[in-house]
């Protein structure tokens, strides 16, 4: 007997004689199909303006910095300003996301854009979030050419651009978006929920930012 059959057999044997396997299969198919939502915290249930406010407040509470701009055309200026304020080199790593293409880079003559995944040599990466979660100030990132996963983790500074309208109240609303994009039951190769910059408390329980991932997370909300 294969290990698989043996393990599954032991699991079935432990149940004694379950009522009916057809019933159990139906129960499982129903749950997988309907994906019931469970308890959604009240604090996530807000109208759009308050939801965006909560998202910004939570993201800052968990160590991100925040900027709000009026349009995609202002993103490049905000990025340049961020780099200048921190004395960072005027070079960013960026994927192929179309929304980022229209971010007004042409106005920032000194800014160098490197395209494609990060190779670990980048000081700053810029990516576009699929969605935001106001409940916890979290950004949701999907892998792919548009926003390579390595940009989320290798640069010292990670700048995430998010459209205000993509900020949802809760995680469950993000799953609805993902299902719309990918199809029910399908996921991108990697989906990263990111809440604040990388950190560790492994030495004497002292919380320090910038463990292995970015030392800083800067979120730009585009209204």
């Amino acid at each position, binding site marked *: 007997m294969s*290990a698989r059959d043996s*393990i599954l057999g032991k699991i079935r044997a432990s149940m004694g004689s379950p009522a009916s396997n057809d019933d159990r*299969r139906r129960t499982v198919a129903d749950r997988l199909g309907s994906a019931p939502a469970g308890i959604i915290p009240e604090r996530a249930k807000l109208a759009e303006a308050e939801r965006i406010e909560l998202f910004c407040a939570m993201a800052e509470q968990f160590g991100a910095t925040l900027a709000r701009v009026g349009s995609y055309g202002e993103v490049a200026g905000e990025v340049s300003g961020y780099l200048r304020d921190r004395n960072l080199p005027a070079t960013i790593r960026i994927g192929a996301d179309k929304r980022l293409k229209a971010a007004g880079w042409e106005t920032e003559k000194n800014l160098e854009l490197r395209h494609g995944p990060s190779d670990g040599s980048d000081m700053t990466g810029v990516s576009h979030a699929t969605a935001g979660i106001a409940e916890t100030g979290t950004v949701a990132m999907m892998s792919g050419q548009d926003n390579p996963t*390595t940009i989320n983790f290798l640069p010292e500074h990670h700048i995430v651009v998010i459209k205000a309208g993509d900020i949802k109240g809760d995680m469950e609303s993000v799953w609805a978006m993902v299902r719309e994009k990918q199809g029910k039951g399908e*996921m991108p190769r990697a989906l990263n929920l990111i809440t604040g910059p990388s950190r560790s408390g492994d*030495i004497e329980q002292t919380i320090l930012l*910038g463990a292995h991932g970015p030392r800083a997370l800067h979120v730009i909300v585009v209204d």
Partner: protein
Amino acid sequence: MELTANKFKANASKALVDAQLQKALGNVEKGFIGKRQKAADALPEFDALRDNARDIKNHTLAHLDLYLEEYERKVTAAGGHVHWAQTAEDARRIVLDICRKANARTVTKGKSMITEEIALNDHLEANGIEPVETDLGEYIIQLRGEHPSHIIAPAVHLNKEQVEGDFRRVHTHLASERDLSEPVSLLSEAREVLRQRYFAADVGITGANFLIAETGSSVIVTNEGNGDLTQTLGKVHVVVASIEKIVPTLEDTSQILRVLARSATGQDMSVYTTFSTGPKREEDPDGPDEYHVVLLDNGRSAMLGTEYQDMLRCIRCGACMNHCPVYHAVGGHAYGSVYPGPMGAVLTPSLNGIDETGQLPNASTFCGRCEAVCPMRIPLPKMMRHWREREFERNLTPAVARYGLKAWAFFAKRPKLYRFAASLGMPLLSLFGGTSRRFHALPLAGGWTRYRDLPAPEGRTFQQAWAQREALKQEAGH
């Protein structure tokens, strides 16, 4: 690791006089308890979410075979491979085979208790493959040749001076006059050293906090980002996870995520919650070429349908040990097993047998704080008691305790005899207590009087005094 669970008492004795350890253990209470309470208080739905999380896992365990089949189907459809391992040995062999096929010389590892359980690092090393732990705490203890003393804070038993010593000993390529006096400089150094290792590694191995049947995704929940680098930069990503990590849907995962980080570190969300589904796709610029999941049983299926089934709801948040007075006193290594603290006291006997681990479920005051904070509402004291019952049935309870108990039970079951013996014994004991009304030492009570006085009894027993009072009242009434 070598199982020394039944040397718990000796291990604990050493721990209690280890000044370094005692200093570090102060950080457990300082670091975790208040933060968890604050996070729980800030979410009015927290307790309702705990109930729901418990129900989700109970539902999953009742349909585990079917969810595992669906999970496997989805992983395969996404281009991943599922390997089933009945034992730790099977899992080690499977992982080694994958590494060998990838011609791996070094593998990076995200923090995972399951690879501790199967002693994967030793096996890889013995076969010429270097495992590199990348979680800061795991990295530190790997340098020291130790095992985690806590399931989410593996190096919580250490102080920064000890870490500095280890870094100076191992990172000999760095300037000796560098300043490593602060945790932040230690963190930076580990970051620099490990960065190179991610790129050099052929295989990245992680555990999983959840396996999602609906999508075939594995989920890791971390703060440092090392797990993500491990699973993104290696050519091959191997997930090692036990069968009870399954949850049905993304929504179910979200429910449990809401209680996980709050219970563990007091965060609303950990920094990185990553859902991985299969290997790199055609249009992907990054990610692993191969994606493997090793599904480990190692005794779990035998817990189903028994009084220990509830333990399979455990999500490894560490709240039970963070709140355990015994853990606070002796730390995680004293338990002499992979999983310390209350959850370990229940799980370890299931994995290793009660004969070799009987000390662990006994080493509890049953204060119940573990159960009170468990996000999955696992009745840990009750299950520890069940292990004591198994032990008692099998005559594994130490003879002194057994006979002492039997002698006591003999009287407890015979009220008349009990009253008689007590009416003789207590006045005597009271008399011997003298004017100080206490005992500094008493035969057969050494465990008590070594550390504290025994308050002397008042004299007559309550029942004697009560009977006398009632008799006087009756007389007065006549």
